[in-house]
């Protein structure tokens, strides 16, 4: 498969890798709850969600492979961690269950908004893949949103923990909407909507739920839309990661690197 002439190929490939990395890294973080979640049912649910995210990352890397020839295994197991393009949000340690739930909710809501925006993309494969991802993501969002509402507006302790998690995760989540490298070219070619617009839609979505959950994050309302009142945690899209990603990727690649290229 080739990228149609007229579309900026480097930025497009970069964005595909970034979206695959978000899913791969968050999927790995979620898998750390397997066997440890506070409730048996959630243990299974989060393991399912983790596998779904890994499946989405495989879908992105398969598309990338069709365009570049690099295999998904190479992307996941042989790439240097500095070449990952995930946002910082997904690499932070899993924290307590409240942090995991809030981060997952912010991520699911963002993915929903972004995948819907791909319905108008000038690059066909994005349109097709987003339809498949949305079908599964709708359920993820229902799940994490349900937990945010019930734990946010739950007991004194659950509210306290969820509020603390929301304060931590909110500036980090703004990193989901950090511009992709050369994003202006992608916008001009009709491949994507500007991240800034997606962030606005995302804020409207999450504020509706956070209000019901009695949780507060630093935003102000201006002309009917929300604007963050804190500095976003950026850097991931251009490879400025925290040490958490280095450790995570080292764990992720550990077994593979014992015998690189060995068939399973």
């Amino acid at each position: 498969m080739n990228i149609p002439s007229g579309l900026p190929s480097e930025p497009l490939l970069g964005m595909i890798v970034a979206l695959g990395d978000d899913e791969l890294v968050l999927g790995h973080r979620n898998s750390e709850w397997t066997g440890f979640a506070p409730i048996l049912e959630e243990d299974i649910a989060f393991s399912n969600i983790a596998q779904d995210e890994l499946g989405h990352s495989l879908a992105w890397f398969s598309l990338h492979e069709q365009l570049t020839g690099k295999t998904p295994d190479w992307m996941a197991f042989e790439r240097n961690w500095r070449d990952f393009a995930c946002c910082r949000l997904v690499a932070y340690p899993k924290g307590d269950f409240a942090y995991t739930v809030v981060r997952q909710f912010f991520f699911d809501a963002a993915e929903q908004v972004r995948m819907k925006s791909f319905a108008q993309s000038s690059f066909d494969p994005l349109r097709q893949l987003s339809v498949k991802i949305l079908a599964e993501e709708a359920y993820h969002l229902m799940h994490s949103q349900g937990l945010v509402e019930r734990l946010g507006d739950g007991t004194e302790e659950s509210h306290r923990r969820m509020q603390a998690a929301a304060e931590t995760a909110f500036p980090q989540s703004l990193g989901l909407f950090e511009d992709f490298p050369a994003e202006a070219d992608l916008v001009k070619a009709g491949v994507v909507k500007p991240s800034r617009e997606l962030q606005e839609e995302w804020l409207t979505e999450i504020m509706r739920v956070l209000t019901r959950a009695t949780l507060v994050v630093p935003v102000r309302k201006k002309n009917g839309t929300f604007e963050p009142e804190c500095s976003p945690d950026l850097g991931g899209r251009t490879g400025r990661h925290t040490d958490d990603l280095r450790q995570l990727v080292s764990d992720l690649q550990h077994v593979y690197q014992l015998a690189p290229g060995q068939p399973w």
Partner: protein
Amino acid sequence: MSDTQWETYEVFHQSRRGRPHEHVGSVHAPDPEMALQMARDQFARRLDCVSLWVVRSSDIAQTDYQDPNFFSQVFDKSYRDPKAFDAPARTEPAES
């Protein structure tokens, strides 16, 4: 220590439209909506499924295993058994 467990919901699973919902197990959940989501993860991911029911376990009225008489057959009632004809395992839809 206080009881931090959520209440349990019994889960009924239907594999095809028209088939009966069959009891497959139970889940812990804070309310019916979450119970359906939990049930989806526990029981519908690897089985064919078109519908799930959840019922709060405490809403089910049940017989008492300790009550010896509830199901007892003291008198011979064999004359009531439909033994004189063969009942088909399933019925065919009527010709229209």
